[in-house]
């Protein structure tokens, strides 16, 4: 069986994947060691030190309320990754069984479920996000739930597509002849063979979630000040950008870029790793 050590050995042979892995470790360090790494409190305003450029005291400068940008970026890693990981985990846990059932059983009920998923996906993301957050309140958990709802159709569709083609494969017929029940066929035969694309999608979705969280905060539908969150910080700095105060928006923006990039690159690496066809080509 493939193990986690094998995976690391695999990553070490690929520069792009290695780069992604290093970025992931930096983020993990920021989450665990935030109080040690930060030079200031992420939420203490100091109007006297408003909009200061990067200096020895404030490495990446301060924002309009005089909060230290470097420290806020560090602490925001917690919020952003927490929201993203929770959202994607929930979406995976809910979406995968839905996709499996809908793909395996063909009835009016499956069609109905698919139309509901279509409905969710056809909604503009930000309109849906704003609507849900305004109903439920601007809490980080609500942002996570919004994102989970948005991602459930993605996982459900991926698994459904796989299940649809696997269902008619001869090994499923052979399993039925061996006395396998529907439940066994779905969870023991189809699911393990259908999971690869969904696992790759996890990394991609986490990247998307980070971007969407930031986007929701940017338009005011995400978390609220003074919670440190990358999108919120970009939003706060965007007004000063034209005044030549570039550091307020730029640095959290870069944090988003590198975080999303790290997950996207890891998604590629995971896909190459779990795809057996990739094995044969090497």
């Amino acid at each position, binding site marked *: 069986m493939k193990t986690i050590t094998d995976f690391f050995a695999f990553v070490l042979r690929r520069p792009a994947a290695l780069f992604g892995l290093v970025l992931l470790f930096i983020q993990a360090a920021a989450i665990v060691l935030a109080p040690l790494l930060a030079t200031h409190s992420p939420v203490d305003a100091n109007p006297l030190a408003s909009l200061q450029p990067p200096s020895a005291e404030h490495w990446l400068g301060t924002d309009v309320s005089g909060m230290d940008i470097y420290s806020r970026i560090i602490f925001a890693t917690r919020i952003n990754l927490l929201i993203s990981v929770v959202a994607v985990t929930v979406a995976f846990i809910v979406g995968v069984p839905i996709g499996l059932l809908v793909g395996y059983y063909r009835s009016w009920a499956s069609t109905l479920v698919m139309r509901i998923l279509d409905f969710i996906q056809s909604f503009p993301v930000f309109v849906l996000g704003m609507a849900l957050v305004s109903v439920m309140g601007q809490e980080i958990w609500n942002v996570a739930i919004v994102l989970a709802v948005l991602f459930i159709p993605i996982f459900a569709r991926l698994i459904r597509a796989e299940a649809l083609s696997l269902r008619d494969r001869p090994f499923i*017929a052979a399993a039925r002849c061996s*006395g396998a*029940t529907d439940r066994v066929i779905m969870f023991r035969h189809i699911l393990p063979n259908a999971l690869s694309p969904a696992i790759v999608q996890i990394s991609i979705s986490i990247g998307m979630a980070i971007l969407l969280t930031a986007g929701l905060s940017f338009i005011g539908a995400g978390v609220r000040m003074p919670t440190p969150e990358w999108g919120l910080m970009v939003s706060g700095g965007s007004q000063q950008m034209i005044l030549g105060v570039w550091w307020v928006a730029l640095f959290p923006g870069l944090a988003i870029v590198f975080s999303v990039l790290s997950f996207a690159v890891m998604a590629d690496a995971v896909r190459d790793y779990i795809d057996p066809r990739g094995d044969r080509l090497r």
Partner: protein
Amino acid sequence: MTPDTPLLEVDNLSIAYGEDTVLHGVTLSLARDEVLGIVGETGAGKSVLARAMLDLLPGGGRVVSGSIRVAGQDLADMSEAARRKLRGGTVALIGTDAKSLLDPVRTVGVQVADVMRAHRKLGAADARDAAIDLFRKVGIVDPEKRADAYPHQLSGGMAQRIVIAMALITGPRVILADDATLGLDATIQVQVLDLLVARCREFGMGAMIITHDLGIVARYCDRVEIMREGRIVEKAATPDFLRAPGTPYGVELLGAARARPAPMARPATTVEARRPLVEVVGLVKHFKTSSGHVIRAVDDVSFRVSPGETLALVGESGSGKTTVGQCIVRLLASDSGAVLFKNQNVLGIPDRAFRTLRRDIQMVFQEPYVALNPRWTVERLVAEPLGLDPDMVSPGARRARVREMLDLVRLPARVATSFPHELTAGEQKRVGMARALATRPAFVVFDEPTTALDIRVRAQIIDLVRDLQREMQLATLFITHDLNSVRSLAHNVAVMRNGKIVETGETERIFAAPSHDYTRMLLGAELPIERFTA
């Protein structure tokens, strides 16, 4: 070039992939008007050889030594442009699975016309006429209408003819047919090869037929060369080879291609044992296509199988024989009719009740690899049906039975921890059998157990099935189009065509004196080597 220059000369050719040498000093030549058979099992290097002659080695293969001369010209001395001309022009390759070689979204007439216009200055209308003319030459009935068909609307044999037509456009000197008829029905295979060889003779082309079927060699080839592990191990004129192969490997191949001396022990003749174990009565299964057209896949089929008896259900693709098998094991719901197992109609009972009967009614699936869950180990695969056996709950008992089954199908115990992709096709087939036999069923449906296997593996599987019949007193429905294996395995034969059984009888009688025209046609298309060696 003088008329005596061979069309194709391969001299001491070695080809390697990385450190891996796949062809070792191959030397051969092909003259005008000659049909050469290259025979070998999977991995012998036949296809690499064919591709090398077109300078189309797949995936980083390189010529280590030796030379290839086409019509006296060395491939290595040619410019890239000259080689390109060679590929489409002088040498034509016809591969397996013609449908995948055709563009699915354009009609075949247009595709062939395009190839013509690439080589000759022709207007669109003239090219189409020329294409239709060519279709007629390759034996396509109603060519005007066929020209407007898309590849998916054609049968495999028809698609193969189109590809042959394309290959003939440029007037090639050499035809390389690489397993060109693999997967086609016997009657179609004979038609396609007859056509190909006739065209070769007519235009004085040389043909190299690459195959693993000695029957094809016996019927069509002037000379034969046997390949094994990248070497040519034997060269002979075909009649000489069939009379007395010069190498032990040749002897082995020829022996494996022969039908096994027929009858096994007849099933018991007591009245009790002669009572049919399985009786199919008036089975009907119709499929409706999306356009509302009804296909009568199985149309009022009846037969019976006694304990210890093997009934072969033979027919070409589309005859409905596989559908019959699937209806019996209830992978498909039948429309009407009955399947009596020990006098109980198994079609009428609910799924749950039938599940307990699955222990006694098993099926061995056609394609060995795709019928095994790729993520399960052999142990788990073989143990799965044991869930049907209430006595098989303890892991120890299950493990013991799995070992016993692997032993029964002559697989070493160590494969238990392997995954299907780590096994050869023959081993996968055996795993499929071990699995079907694990619950010690009384009745087994074998769906095409011998197709797509190498000659020697096929012979091994046939021997294995014969042994199992004897040891387990199985009642077997043996679905196949491989008549050679029918001779070796079946007591009785039922010939199926268009969903109906057209003739049934004892195996020897059917082969000796077929009474139905269709049966005669099927037997006529068979290429048993006995016909040429006797």
